[in-house]
Each structure stands twice: as C-alpha cells, then as structure tokens.
C-alpha cells in the first residue's frame, strides 16, 4: 500500500499531524547530526611485528585498553569524538608508537581519544596519559605507566611493571613479576598477586595487599596517611617490620620474634611490630606516617 492512499484515508487532520511529525523528525535528525562533530576521528591500523614488540602510547585524555592475542601483529583502534586531536602512528622495526596530538595549541577537557590496542602477548608496553583510564589484560612483558589522574587496572599480567601516577589509582589483579608503583593520592590494590618484588608508595591513599608472599620476595609498602592492609596466607614465610609513626599497627596474626639478622629494639617513636612468620624467607616492610597498618591472615 502506498502512502498516498493512506493520507487520503486519514483525512485532513491526520495530514497536518503527519506534516508536524515529519518536521519534528527532521529537526531532531538535524540536532543529532549537529551533536556529532564534523571532524570525529575513528580509525583502525594494523602493524606486522616480530614477537616481543615495543609499543608506546601517548595520550592526554581517554580510555586506553590493551589486550593481547597470539598474532604477531599490533592492531590499534581509536575514536576521537571531538575531532580536536589527531593520532599519529609510527612503526620503526619492532617498535610501534601511537601519539595523540592536539590540533590547536591547547588541550581541553572535552578532548578525549579512546584506544583499543591489541598486541602480541609478549610485548613491552609504555603508556603515558593524563586523564581517563588504562586497562591491560594478560600481557607478559615490561610495562611502564605514567599518569596524572588516570586510573590503572592490570589483570593477569607478568613482567617488570613501573607505575607512576599523581592522582590515579592502581588495581592489580593476579599480577606476577616485579612491581614498583608510586602515587600521591591514589589507592593501590593488589589482589591475588604472585609478585617476587613489590614496592608501592602513596601519600594519602590506601594500600591493600591480599595474596601470598613468595619465599624469596621483598615487599615494601609505604604511605603517609590512609590505611595499609595486608592479608596473607598462614603458610607464607616472611620477616615483618611494620611501623606507623603516628598511627596504629593492628596485628591479628601470630608472629614469633624475628630470628634473622640484627635485633630490633623497640622504637621510641610510634608503633612498631617486628616478627617472623614460619621460616621468615621473604621480607615485608610496612611503613606509615600517620596511617593505620592492619595485618591479617586470609584463612
């Protein structure tokens, strides 16, 4: 059935309504078109690489998602909704660089570029971004992250990881290898880690470690205020040194006196706990200026 017989059948009133609806629809379509920037940038690029490439990402604001696959290829997808930035990519041998550049002289908060980057499972990664978020899944290789207030989530990663952030938080799920992380006001969460070496520091943020201490590991957690909370397995073997200058040290585990190294005289400043769990293989140092340190077994 064509539209014309329908309009005739509907009568004059319905015709006027149809015209109004048509006009409204056209206006709304116009508004929607106006809301989409004329220069929105969306692209996908592929780079053939050797195993273990080095991938560098520089962005100012937006979501950066790093995934892995079995291919020897790096795939970069991005969306820049505002169209105020351009994305430059470069391949030099086994090194890939992805850099966002502002079109003008200034960066605005609305200028946001989201990336989805898929890399070989064994890649070296370097990410620098200011705001937004960074997520990395299942990567095995060295990683460095430098953010202002972008939050970082690492899951099932293994390697030497260096995280430097001002305001951003770190969530590390099942991370293995070696981790060095520093923040001023961000929180640090380490869930089920199997790290050999850990050094985390935040000023006003909280630190949560929920996992096991490997027998040859060194674990240093330090903050200024906030809480340091450590949950470990009763089978873990480590020496503990926990000190809070102005805050409390709350211990709910059974330690025996430290049998290694030099004696630990009671500090005349603050609250301290020294002790050994099982054979004391690993070394755990917890330190806070005014925060509370909580030590608990998981079982």
């Amino acid at each position, binding site marked *: 059935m064509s539209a014309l017989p329908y309009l005739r059948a509907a009568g004059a009133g319905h015709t006027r309504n149809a015209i109004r609806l048509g006009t409204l629809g056209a206006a709304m379509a116009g508004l929607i078109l106006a809301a989409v920037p004329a220069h929105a940038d969306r692209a996908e690029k592929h780079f053939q690489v050797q195993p273990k490439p080095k991938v560098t990402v*520089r*962005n*100012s*604001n937006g979501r950066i998602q790093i995934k892995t696959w079995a291919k020897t290829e790096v795939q970069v997808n991005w969306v820049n909704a505002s169209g105020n930035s351009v994305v430059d990519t470069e391949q030099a041998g086994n090194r890939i660089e992805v*850099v*966002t*550049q*502002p079109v003008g*002289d*200034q*960066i*605005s*908060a609305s*200028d946001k570029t989201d990336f989805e980057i898929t890399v070989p499972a064994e890649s070296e990664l370097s990410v*620098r971004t*200011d*705001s937004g978020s960074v997520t990395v899944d299942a990567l095995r290789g060295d990683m460095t992250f430098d953010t*202002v*207030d972008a939050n970082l989530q690492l899951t099932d990663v293994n390697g030497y990881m260096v995280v430097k952030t*001002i*305001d951003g938080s770190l969530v590390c799920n099942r991370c293995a290898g070696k981790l060095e992380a520093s923040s*001023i*006001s961000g929180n640090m969460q380490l869930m089920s880690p199997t790290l050999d070496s850990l050094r985390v520091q935040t*000023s*006003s943020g909280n630190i949560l470690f929920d996992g096991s201490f490997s027998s040859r590991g060194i674990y240093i957690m330090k903050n*200024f205020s906030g809480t340091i909370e450590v949950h470990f397995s009763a089978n873990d073997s480590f020496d503990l040194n926990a*000190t809070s*200058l102005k805050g409390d040290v709350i211990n709910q585990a059974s330690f025996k006196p430290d049998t290694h190294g030099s004696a630990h005289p009671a*500090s005349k*400043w*603050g609250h301290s706990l020294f002790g050994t769990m099982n054979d004391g293989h690993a070394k755990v140092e917890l*330190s806070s*200026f*005014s925060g509370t340190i909580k030590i608990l077994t998981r079982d």
Partner: protein
Amino acid sequence: MNMKCEQFERILEQQEGGPLPKQAAAHLEECNTCRALSADLGAIRDAALELSAGEEAPPERIWVSLRNQLEAEGLIRNTQPVSRALEPARSSWWSVWQRPAVAGAFLALLLAASGAIGFLSNAPQISVQSQISPRQEVSPTLTADNVFKEEILTVGNDAVSGLQRQDTTVTQSIRRNLQLVDNLIAICEKSVREQPDNQMARDYLYGAYQQKAELLAAAMNRGMTGGLQ
C-alpha cells in the same frame, strides 16, 4: 701548611668537577667532612647532567634568587657578578641546573645532603641553642627548606598558572596534590622540629620534598609541552 676546610671549599667550587690541586687532594684524603661534601657535589653534578635533556627554563629571577640564597648560606660563594654567572655562553654546570627537573633533583639532593650534615654534625648543638636562645638558630635542613619554600614554591606557582591547557581536570588534580604535599611537608616539619632525632620523621620529610620536586617537574613538563611529549 695544612689546608683549612674553608680554603678547600673555595677550591672545590672553582674547580667545578675538575682535578684538584695537590694540596686540596691531600686535604680531601684527611678530612671526612670535605670528602662528604665533595661526594655530595659530585652526585648533584651527575644528577644534573643526567636530567639536562631539553626542558624549558623557569624565569631568571628564580635562579638569581636561588643563587643568592645559596651564597647567603655559604653553600656556594659569589666569585663573579650574578649577571655574568648567568650568561648563556658560560658552559658551567650551574647552567645545567637552570631547568625544572634539574632544580628538583638538585634541591632534593641538597636537602638530603644538608639533612645528613645537619643530623650528623649539628643537631645536638642546635637543640641546645634553641633551648638557651630565643633567637632561632635553624639547622641546615630547615635553612635548605627555606630555599625550597622561597624558590621552588614560586616555581610551582609559576608552573601551574602557566599551564598551556584548558584541561581543568588535570590542572585541578595537580593543584590539589601540590596542596596535599605542602600539607605533608608542614606536618613532617613539625614532627622534625619536635623530635629532631626522629630519623623516620626526617625520612618522611625528605620523601615529601622529593614528591614535591617530582610533582612540579611533572606539572611543568605537561604544561609546557601541551601534555604530550
């Protein structure tokens, strides 16, 4: 005749990392204090050279003021007019310091050195002096802190206000964290004043200064390069 520490310091400054005359080298062998000073200056010089990769210089007045302050403290001596000392053509390691990251590294090291010297050699006397004299005799740590406050906080303000970006989220975050670190410094300073022999409080104070320097370097770096480098 044996060389005095003051003479050695003058020679050390003039040599700027070069080989020492025989008499000065002999003094260095004998004197622990001068050996420590020489090692500290060497570390500062190395760090400054490592961090010298192209960054924008802050306003000249800061360096003039910083140099004057260091001279007033006796940490360096003015062997020539400041204007000559700051001539671009002069390729001394002082010119390497005229960069924000270098400033941070320098001051952090300076504070560490001053703190160590103050703690090891002067802290007991200073405690006694503060008890017997209403006039405040400050320790090298606190004096160096004054340098930090007067000069680097000014750099900080310049750096943040000069950010070439409209991304208020980032600038606010940096400002908020600068404020936070300033508060931490104030708290640590209070602790160190109250408990001068509390090494942990000193470590936290030093750590807070380091954070401040790193934060300012990050702010200037991002602001001056448009957030990307």
